């Protein structure tokens, strides 16, 4: 008995011949591409967010003081004097409670900083002037008055000292990464709308093709829900196949892009780790695409059936 039931069930996936429809493969490819693009966009957005956070965390509470290699009158400051001036500035800054950490870079540190331009010479000739650099960690909420006070104290020691809070170029970079984050959000919304339009169109087209079968089911007393379930199941299977393909492509392409970006050696892009939120969003994206496919098919099907007798 069970074999007969099994046999009849195995041939009967749907009361409406949805499996025989042409265009199913096209729809699977389209949704798979949408899924891949969505994962790519979410990953891009998450990377931009992570980078901006990295820069913010790394530089927003930092300040660099540069003692130029030449004094106001244009005379080169001797290395020993430069070390003394740097130490004096360091000592002065330690008096402020808003200064969390101060470190005057020694010769070795400075040589390492200038090595990209001057090479890795351990013993640089003393004729080459080197600036004094003091790295400072400041309180995030430091006031402008306090900054002015600090500047005055530094200038008393070194009148032409340059204080760089990295704000100018940091804000440009943050604006740039912010724009990229918005762009990825717009892209994700566009992908969602494209998926909705494609699925709704496909459902309407299938319902038009199978109008006779749908009408027959209605005449036998089938409820809208009975018919909707068949289209929904069909869409869910298409959706699952699509997101699996899209995710598979993403799993191959995104690490490859990461590898290519890494091999370019772009020093402005730091080593960072994705925030948990971003990681979860990437994992959730295929599920969201699948939900969009199923919900769209249900809503579209319901709307079309409502217009039938």
């Amino acid at each position, binding site marked *: 008995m069970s074999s007969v039931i099994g046999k009849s069930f195995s041939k009967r996936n749907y009361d*409406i011949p949805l499996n025989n429809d042409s265009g199913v493969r096209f729809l699977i490819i389209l949704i798979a591409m949408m899924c891949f693009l969505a994962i790519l966009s979410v990953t891009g957005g998450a990377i931009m967010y992570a980078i901006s956070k990295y820069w913010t965390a790394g530089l927003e509470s930092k300040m660099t003081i540069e003692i130029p290699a030449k004094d106001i009158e244009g005379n080169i400051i001797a290395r020993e004097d430069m070390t003394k001036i740097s130490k004096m500035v360091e000592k002065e800054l330690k008096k402020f409670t808003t200064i969390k950490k101060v470190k005057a870079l020694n010769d070795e540190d400075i040589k390492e900083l200038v090595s990209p331009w001057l090479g890795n010479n351990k013993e640089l000739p003393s004729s080459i002037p080197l600036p004094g650099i003091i790295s400072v960690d400041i309180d995030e909420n430091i006031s402008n008055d306090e900054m002015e006070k600090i500047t005055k104290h530094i200038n008393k020691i070194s009148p032409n000292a340059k204080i760089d809070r990295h704000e100018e170029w940091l804000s440009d970079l943050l604006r740039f990464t912010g724009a990229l984050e918005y762009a990825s959000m717009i892209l994700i919304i566009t992908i969602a709308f494209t998926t909705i339009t494609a699925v709704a169109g496909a459902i309407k087209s299938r319902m038009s093709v199978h109008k006779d079968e749908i009408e027959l089911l209605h005449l036998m007393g089938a409820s*809208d829900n*009975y018919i909707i379930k068949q289209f929904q199941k069909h869409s869910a299977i298409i959706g699952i196949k699509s997101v699996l393909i899209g995710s598979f492509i993403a799993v191959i392409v995104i690490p490859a892009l990461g590898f290519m970006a890494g091999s370019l050696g772009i020093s402005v892009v730091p080593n960072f780790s994705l925030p948990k939120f971003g990681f979860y969003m990437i994992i959730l994206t295929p599920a969201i695409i699948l939900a969009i496919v199923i919900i769209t098919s249900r809503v579209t099907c319901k709307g079309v059936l409502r217009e039938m007798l």
Partner: protein
Amino acid sequence: MIEFQHVGLRYGIGPEVLKDISFKLEPGSFHFLSGPSGAGKTSLMSLLYLGQRPTRGLINMFGMNIGQLSREQLLPLRQKIGVVFQNFRLLHHMSTFDNVALPLRIAGIEEKVIKNNVEELLEWVGLGDKMHSLPSTLSGGQQQRIAIARAVIAKPRLLLADEPTGNLDDEIGYRLMGLFEQLNKMGTTIVIATHNQQMMDKFTHTKLILDEGNLFVKEPKSWLKTKLDGVF
């Protein structure tokens, strides 16, 4: 059980295909519906199986005024009606078994019961060995028997059949008429649309005759043709 009062039907802005039709079908009655091609038989059948609503008049079925019912409220009424369509309207991607089982599955009947009932009925209509065949691989007569089996499987209260014996040889045709008679004796109201005068003459049932959208009735005993002037 079914009452039409001054029912008219037109498609779009075209002329009325059914004009001021009034009649009653008592529970357990048996009627032939006949008339020349284009007389409105299919339109009247579609009103009976709730395939469309009339453009005027009242239709009362199973104690409900059809005009006042929503789409959802029509569903339980449709489950009480079995229809044999002239072109069968079988689902060709499904097996014979599944086609016949469809009304029971829609009604949410248990699969075990479906299997027993469908197998028994298919044996009875001579399609026991074609249970798992696709309708497209069967002859016209066999497809017609599937359509009939599908219409009667759920033991409907009203059975409508459009030329149900048209493609069948006399023996199977009369056998199926016997099935209809049997269902009728069990209380099912039956309306059979047919051109087969020989078939109609063999049975003493009321004849509903449509001519240019007007309905006439031929009572079995008097054989008098009476025009129905909107009053029963």
